[in-house]
């Protein structure tokens, strides 16, 4: 049976939802898997809803278009749930039975009783994951929230590894010919200024990813035979 996950990512503008989906997709391909992405472009602006769809598999993917019935949903911002900042309402619409909802929040959220009941009926696994907190702790800023989430989901799916993720981050920030929208390009330059040097930017992003990966392993969310990622010796020695 194919190891296949259709993932819907919902967040708000500026969080790097589309960038995150590109990185996960590239990371899975780097690790020898298959992946496709479909970003949902609406009116792109800060704090406005953004959705992106990623399919990852260890077999060929033929399916196209948006994902209506995901195996996994990733909520980048609690406002997606609390303020309804989403193209898909309620946030878990279409989630398959025994599906996973990975939610960026410090601890469990109080959901409306109807929503809690519906999630229970479809046996959804709710993983509350403090991605922004981890980003602040590890990188000293919240802009790597998406990296924490991608590290975490990488371990949950088991379809990539830290080397694949690291390479994907390098491709994203150093690669040539990557087409981004004007807004994303502007944001990239802000991020780059903040980190002064690209190398430093990549190292911090990878460190946040690794923290996300290990969080998933430590909490028993990771796929079978996914192990903790240790700090590379060479990088630690620098």
């Amino acid at each position, binding site marked *: *049976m194919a190891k296949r996950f259709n993932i819907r990512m919902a967040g708000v503008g500026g969080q790097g939802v589309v960038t995150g989906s590109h990185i996960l997709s590239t990371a899975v391909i780097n690790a020898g898997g298959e992946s496709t992405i479909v970003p949902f472009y609406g009116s792109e602006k800060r704090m406005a809803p953004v959705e992106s769809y990623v399919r990852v598999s260890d077999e060929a*993917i*033929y*399916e*196209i*278009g948006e*994902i*209506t*019935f995901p195996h996994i949903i990733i909520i980048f911002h609690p406002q997606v749930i609390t303020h309804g900042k989403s193209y898909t309402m309620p946030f878990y619409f279409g989630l398959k039975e025994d599906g996973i909802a990975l939610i960026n929040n410090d601890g469990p959220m109080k959901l409306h009783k109807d929503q809690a009941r519906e999630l229970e009926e479809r046996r959804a696994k709710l993983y509350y994951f403090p991605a922004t907190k981890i980003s602040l702790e590890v990188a000293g800023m919240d802009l790597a929230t998406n990296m924490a989430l991608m590290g975490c989901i990488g371990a949950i799916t088991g379809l990539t590894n830290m080397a694949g993720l690291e390479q994907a981050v390098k491709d994203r920030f150093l690669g040539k010919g990557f087409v981004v929208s004007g807004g994303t390009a502007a944001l990239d330059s802000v991020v780059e200024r903040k980190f002064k040097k690209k190398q430093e930017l990549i190292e911090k992003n990878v460190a946040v990813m690794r923290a996300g990966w290990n969080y998933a392993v430590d909490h028993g969310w990771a796929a079978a035979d996914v192990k903790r990622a240790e700090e590379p010796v060479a990088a630690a020695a620098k």
Partner: protein
Amino acid sequence: MSEALEAQQKTNPQGDPITSVAAPKSDGKKDPHAEAKRQKVVTPEYMFHEAPRTKEFITGSEAAKEAIRRSNVDLAVAYPITPQSETMQLVGVLYGEGYVKEYYRGEEEVGVMAAIAGGSRSGVRCYTATAGPGTLRGLEGIASWPGHRLPAVAMFTCRVVNAPLAIQPDNIEVSYLLNCGMIVFHAENQQDMFDFTMAGFIISEKNDVTLPVGVCCDGFFVTHARGYVRMQDRGIKLPPREAWRGAVPVLDAENPPARLSRDAPVQKSNFMAYNIHAVWQQEVWAAVERSRKYINQYLGGLLTAENVDGADAIIIASGSAAAQSREAVRLCAEKGIKVGLIKIRSLRPFPTKELRALCGKAKLIVVPEFNYVGWLAKEVATAIYGFSQAKIIGGPRVYGGQSMPVELIVDEVESGVHGKKSTNVAMSSIMGGAVNPEEVAQFMRSI
């Protein structure tokens, strides 16, 4: 040198330079057309069956561009309607590089389709692409191409045509193209875009065909998304069009183009005039029939069939619906249901004989589509009528730009196999020999 190139820069009717298609800036030493001039002509047989290929990850528009690069195209005419694909813009780049001999932007689609007619009549190889509302605006011209026996390839990247405006795929425009008398292919993915376009030129120009070929795809999903395409080396190209091989003489001062405008009786209201037109139409459709052997030769068949023997159900689909169906087959297999898949590549000519042979023992046929009217389900039902007792579920259907969840197709297969009532296909779209009359009666009573 560079000044000469600047002077040749074309302008649109408003006088703006078409910067995107201008020849690349030259320092006077390097010929921007050098690579194109080195291209070697090979036979279609070598190109399609023998030439080594390498795999690249490109968009459908880029796949069409690469097909044009290898197709020895003389004339391409563009009109950048929204929603268009980038295809004609990319073909403009090819013009800059010297791979396409002539290229310009038309006033609008009526003008573009007329220009393609003029180019083809004068004996050169022509290409254009349009989408959605542009297809319908150009349809008067497109529908006249077959009658004038004009070989050409046109790409239709299907988008929504009806109000309210939308820009996502909905292939209802294919239904308008089916009855023009042209050959119509439906591409599932980027690879099909590449292969169908190149083979289209060769099939189109065969003497006993001499008809335009339409290559359709579900726009956006195929044109704007990347997929793997196996391509021949860019240093080789198809042989040029040899217009003297066509079924009608090419246009020049001595020879009016084709019989319809040359023969006086056709202008009159009498039996002979009607008869001439009738015979001409018969000949157009006979030419469509004769293209079958070339489609078999160059594309390997009008359809592909996988795991059809002994299947619990067969999905018949074309275009993007075929891609979605591949996943549905996999999900059904996980549930223990054996499903075969027939992908229709050529809608005109339609693979009637092939379907009759493949569906003779079928119990259930599901036809998912990206349009409201269900043109493929009707084609399938008509083709196998009397040759199969299968229940035909004409659905699921999505339209207006929706994506088709694979789960909807799985639902229809499951409901059909287990005899449950379908959740989202209307009774009127359930056809075929095995329909339960009591269910129909119940439906009729309840409406």
